[in-house]
């Protein structure tokens, strides 16, 4: 299996969980806080990495910690070999309207 933190897809959407603020005991690193601050609205993993200017691999590890602490949620993008026709049609409509 992939190493720690590899389970976040590039276009998975992450968002801060609406719970209480993280307890000081979690001892979040500045990078954790930086990521958390950007997740106040839903954002993809790849946009997040670009905004905080850290390599994807690092962002995945940070996200892995934050989800384990329950302060960030991950909403997985459609995956796998079979892509739904509904999604394909939605993208086609979008492109045609450009």
């Amino acid at each position, binding site marked *: 299996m992939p190493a720690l933190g590899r389970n976040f897809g590039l*276009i998975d959407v992450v968002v*801060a969980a609406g719970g209480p603020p993280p307890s000081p005991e979690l001892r979040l690193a500045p990078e954790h806080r930086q990521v958390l601050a950007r997740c*106040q609205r*839903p954002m993809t993993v790849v946009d997040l990495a*670009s905004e905080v200017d850290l390599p994807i*691999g*690092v962002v995945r590890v940070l996200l892995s910690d934050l989800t384990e602490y329950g302060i960030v949620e991950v909403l997985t993008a459609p995956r796998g070999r079979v892509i739904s026709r509904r*999604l394909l049609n939605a993208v086609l409509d*979008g*492109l045609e309207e450009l």
Partner: protein
Amino acid sequence: MDSKNSESPVPTTAKIIIAGGFGAGKTTLVGAITEIRPLRTEETLSDRSVGVDDVSGVDNKTTTTVAMDFGRITFRSDLALYLFGMPGQERFWFMWEELSFGALGAVVLADTRRLASCFASVDYFEHYGIPFLVAVNCFDGAPRYDPADVRIALDLDPSVPVLMCDARRRDSVKTALIGLVRHALTRSGVQESELAGGPALG
């Protein structure tokens, strides 16, 4: 309690891969259509050194990170399409799997001066059954090939669309992306009817 912006719509996200050899125009294509200039993020490599897939990076010899270019098109507040440039050289294979997993399909951008540079990505998409089309980038001064010649040179299946494309032009790129999604829809219809054990209804 702070005013949490948890009411923002959660977008559905989709991705399309832009593949092609070194310098084929992938970043140009992404930049021609996405709402943001192509962004760059880095993938860290643990145990090997590779060059960066960028003409300006040729002098960099080796590095432990590889740049990944991407762009985004937001259609509605709840649907965003991402375009990812996929480095064409086979030594980047370790990124291909991740980039192509869950992708709607791929545009293989072919540079007629170096057609051989897209063999590896064509093979990859064929092998994994990822819908793709070949867009022949019409560079100024590049030899003009008939799409039929490119099809023969790349030994493409007759069902794979081949079209001419100017990666600098938004309308041309839009046509290529629409062609790809239509191709993916056609294939998905075929797969569904195969799964159902007979021809599609209607």
